[in-house]
């Protein structure tokens, strides 16, 4: 759509601008402020320049949780995106059955995040949970609270349970937007199911897949509540991700300076990776 140039439109955007400025810019400036000062109390604060940044960048605890975070987000994307596409392809296009599917699949998305943790905590425990008990019955020694590998698998399965539906629903709406003539043409050409997927469905799903990848990346990178409830970050530090490390630092130990410096680095990483995904996925359009 060709848009009219009109600077008066700023008046319409002004409320959003003010609101977001209040709830984002002011807190962000506070964070910046903390990150360059050493604060003892209201009256004694010293400018320390980039010291906190230097300290944070050399902190091995942060390196570890950053690495864990990247592995976790990569696993989440590698499992959920293909699975979500596959499920969207199997969903019926029309009728009562399809709206039932949509509703059932949306349920996990609407459960408060701490309750998601609770559900899996209850479900996975060896004494009272169906999953834990049946795995142990089968002779697999499963305990997410003490075994690192089990904890990781449980947190990942929980995330797949929680968020694959989002990817599937996005892809489903992308698939519904493909006109029937495309499929008819493919049938005339005797295209295989794979060819239909590769050359018709996948390109048409690209815009929604972009949204799915971005949302899943951002949210998995900021994950806090679910692993916190399920494993409390343990065993040891095995499932302590970035947000939890940050919260420990800021609220638990009250290390304001390093926590603020770390916050800004964290935010920049998310921005940078999101931008990389965005350019990588829109760049192929031009070729």
């Amino acid at each position, binding site marked *: 759509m060709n*848009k009219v*140039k*009109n*600077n008066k*439109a*700023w008046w*319409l*955007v002004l*409320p*959003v601008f003010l*609101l*977001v400025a*209040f*709830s*984002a810019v002011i*807190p962000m400036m*506070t*964070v910046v402020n903390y990150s360059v000062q050493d604060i003892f109390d209201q009256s004694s604060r010293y400018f320390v320049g980039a010291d906190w940044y230097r300290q944070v960048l050399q902190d091995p605890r942060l390196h570890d949780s950053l690495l864990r975070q990247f592995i976790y987000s990569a696993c989440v994307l590698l499992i959920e995106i293909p699975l979500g596409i*596959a*499920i969207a392809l199997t969903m019926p296009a029309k009728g009562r*059955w399809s*709206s039932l*599917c949509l509703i059932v*699949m949306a*349920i*996990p998305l609407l*459960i*408060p*995040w*701490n*309750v998601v943790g*609770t*559900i899996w905590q209850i*479900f996975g425990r060896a004494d*009272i*949970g*169906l999953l834990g008990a049946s795995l142990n019955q089968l002779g697999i020694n499963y305990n997410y609270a003490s075994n690192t590998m089990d904890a990781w698998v449980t947190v990942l399965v929980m995330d797949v349970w929680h968020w694959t*539906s*989002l990817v599937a*629903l*996005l892809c*489903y*709406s*992308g698939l*519904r937007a493909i006109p029937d003539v495309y499929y008819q043409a493919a049938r005339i050409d005797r295209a295989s199911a794979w060819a239909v997927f590769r050359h018709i469905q996948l390109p048409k799903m690209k*815009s929604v897949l972009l*949204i799915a990848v971005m949302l899943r990346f951002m949210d998995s990178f*900021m994950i*806090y509540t679910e692993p916190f409830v399920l494993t409390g970050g343990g065993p040891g530090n095995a499932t302590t991700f970035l*947000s*939890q490390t*940050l*919260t420990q630092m*800021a609220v638990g130990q009250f290390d304001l300076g390093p926590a603020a410096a770390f916050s*800004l680095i*964290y*935010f920049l990483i*998310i*921005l940078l990776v*999101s931008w990389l995904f965005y350019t990588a996925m829109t760049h192929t359009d031009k070729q």
Partner: protein
Amino acid sequence: MNLRKTVPLLIYILFLLVPIYWLLNMSFKSNTEILGGLTLWPQQFTLDNYRVIFTDPSWYSGYINSLYYVCLNTVISLSVALPAAYAFSRYRFLGDKHLFFWLLTNRMAPPAVFLLPFFQLYSSIGLFDTHIAVALAHCLFNVPLAVWILEGFMSGVPKEIDETAYIDGYSFPRFFVKIFVPLIASGIGVTAFFCFMFSWVELLLARTLTSVNAKPIAAVMTRTVSASGIDWGVLAAAGVLTIIPGMLVIWFVRNHVAKGFALGRV
């Protein structure tokens, strides 16, 4: 419907429903039965766990608090996002692209980053432990999202409609309320759904910004851990009750869900 497609789908749906069933199952059991051994359905069906929640004000006020700030947030987000989304979908203006991108970056900011600044900001203006504080804090991620979704829906409405209305002598506010809003009603419904959803599921900010008067249900749930261990039955019942508002909301928007999840862009 063919079998090769239905079976994997059914397996997936089963995978989604079994953990929820387990929660539901547990909420109808007494604690002795839960800890006594594994039973696939409640042997001694009891509503005691629910009775605890509905008779104790500190429990049910958690639900009221949560619903209150979630609705407040949805109203605030929608009312500021509607005009802004209209501006983005119809006009070019100074810095429009930058502004839009800047809005979206707020969706990428980890809530953990904002914990302390929010706490200090709202404490200093005397809003700590009020519903409006949580509602405003949740605007951080809901407003950008609302603008994004609404912009998609509004771009789908032909511009000729606006022009015809102006020629017919409609003023902007009257056109917007009388003609434009009804046209994108489904988009508004979907946006409200998303705002409701993301505000309802968030815990970290809501918990930090409240202590007593506006304490959300998610924070109340941590109470079930006491010296005598975790009260599993009540915890499960509270969990089941948090799922219900979401299911009601999705029932209302079920016909628009598919388009809504594509954020109006299909």
